[in-house]
């Protein structure tokens, strides 16, 4: 069962406001706005990653995206805005992020957001509705606890790779393994080709004897 980003109270399904603190998305919109925001797979606003580390993480995120075509994982390194907690920020990001470019085919319900504040030494992790059944609250809390040690040592790459590895292992349990489609072999016979593509012949000259063509000419 999910918890309120503000007061951590257990949430009942289909509630507009938190039963405990009356929290909702609008309260965060007031502080951060309700316009869509672009979020790439890896955003390093805090400049805590070296070029080599960034490439390595992007490669890992690329592999993950290839294995799970529905899921978008966004990793954000940046300072937490004032007045907003990490849970509220991740909640707001998942609802306001706009996926474009290569991620356009994915949906926010299948998104995972990992936000790291190296200055405030806080890390947040949240998932969309479609992943709640697989990546349950307890699992997310366990992952966050394990993140503390590598992040404390500033091992950001190892921390993110650990998260990806745990997500992959957990998601495979709830997902179905699908082999990518085979190459299409076109039929060899012409008629079968025309039937397959639903096209008619443009001219009757194809397959028609010459005498028939001459007869038609005389008629015209």
């Amino acid at each position, binding site marked *: 069962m999910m918890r309120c980003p503000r007061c951590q109270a257990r949430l009942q*399904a289909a509630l507009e406001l938190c039963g405990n603190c009356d929290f909702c998305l609008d309260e965060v919109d007031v502080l951060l706005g309700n316009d869509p925001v672009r979020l790439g797979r890896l955003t390093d606003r805090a400049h805590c990653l070296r070029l080599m580390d960034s490439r390595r993480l992007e490669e890992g995120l690329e592999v993950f995206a*290839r*294995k799970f075509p529905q899921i978008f994982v966004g990793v954000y390194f940046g300072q937490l805005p004032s007045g907003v907690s990490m849970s509220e920020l991740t*909640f707001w990001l998942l609802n306001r992020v706009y996926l474009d470019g290569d991620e356009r085919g994915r949906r926010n319900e299948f998104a995972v957001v990992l936000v790291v504040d190296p200055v405030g030494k806080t890390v*947040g992790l*949240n998932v969309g509705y*479609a992943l709640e059944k697989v990546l349950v609250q307890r699992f997310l809390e366990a992952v966050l606890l394990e993140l503390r040690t590598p992040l404390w040592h500033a091992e950001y790459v190892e921390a993110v790779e650990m998260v990806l590895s745990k997500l992959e292992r957990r998601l495979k349990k*709830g997902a179905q393994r699908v082999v990518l489609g085979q190459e299409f072999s076109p039929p060899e016979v012409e008629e079968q080709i025309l039937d397959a593509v639903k096209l008619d012949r443009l001219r009757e000259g194809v397959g028609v004897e010459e005498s028939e063509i001459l007869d038609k000419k005389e008629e015209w």
Partner: protein
Amino acid sequence: MGGWAYKWLMGVLALTLVSMVWAEGRDGVLPLPNWEQEEVQIFPLGGGLLPKDGEEPRVGEGNDAGLFIPNRGVGEKGIGVVVEEGVERPLVEVGVDFLQRLDVRAEGEYVLDPAGLVGPGSVEELNRLLATQAEEGQVRPHLILLPEHHRLPQGVDLGKLGRMSEMGGVSCMVVYAMGEPWRVRLFMSRRVSEKVSRDYLSKLAQRCIQDAMKSEHAAEQLKRFVIQLCVRLTWMEREHGWTEREPGLEEDGVGEEMGAEVLEVTAEGGELEVDSVWERRWREVRQWLWVVFALLAVVYGIWRGVRWLLNRVRQREQGVVWMLPEVEVPPRLGGKYCGGGGGSVKY
């Protein structure tokens, strides 16, 4: 494993292979002097312990120990010499006190070591070996130890030597110079010489010397000699049908006055195959090289197999995706795509 591990493994494999080929090749190029034909014929050795018929041995009779090492050491007088590191040293006769101490022999004592060349523990062990042979076999071996570079005096009476004639039975006396197994002499009683050919006895002595020469330490050489002697005496008895003690045998002895002929056996007449230290060590190293090479080949094969399997799995996984089911979740807290949850932690 990365590329560096692969290169390291290939390097070690190549080095092992080269070492083995080199080791094999060395068999044809021994660091030993080439033997001349004459030297091989008069080889070995043994000699200087007891000249024949009281005469001084002459060169060419095969009694000169100096001929053991070719192109060296025949003394001026033709008397046996021992050559050590290019220095000719004539053999020294043992003194009277040595012979007197030989006479002090207790019952059941088969090893006579008047000069105290081996420790009491070793003497006991050798004595036990010879006593076992004496009890279980027909031939009773006795061992007299001489210091190195020493010989028995000329004209010494074998029968009285160590009171052998009092022992009786079918006997074999070995006169062994410590550290110089090639100089060993075997004396067999008449019973043995009548039944066993000289060639056989010569070969017997030869094999015992060869076994002793496999070691570099004097004590170890002696032990190997005695063990080999006991074994070969047993074989000799079996081959010649000696299964039970013959009656009247107790009167036979070595050198007794009833005219027993003492057969003096040396290891002459044959080629003594003595391996050098170098050859022995290379033989051992070669065996281990094979083992190392086989192990490396196995490790390499396993590593390649694992890599191939991993590559296949990786290729198969590249064409595989994981699809999650579509789940309808009623929205919460006004969020269209996410309704809270997750968490955060300070580190």
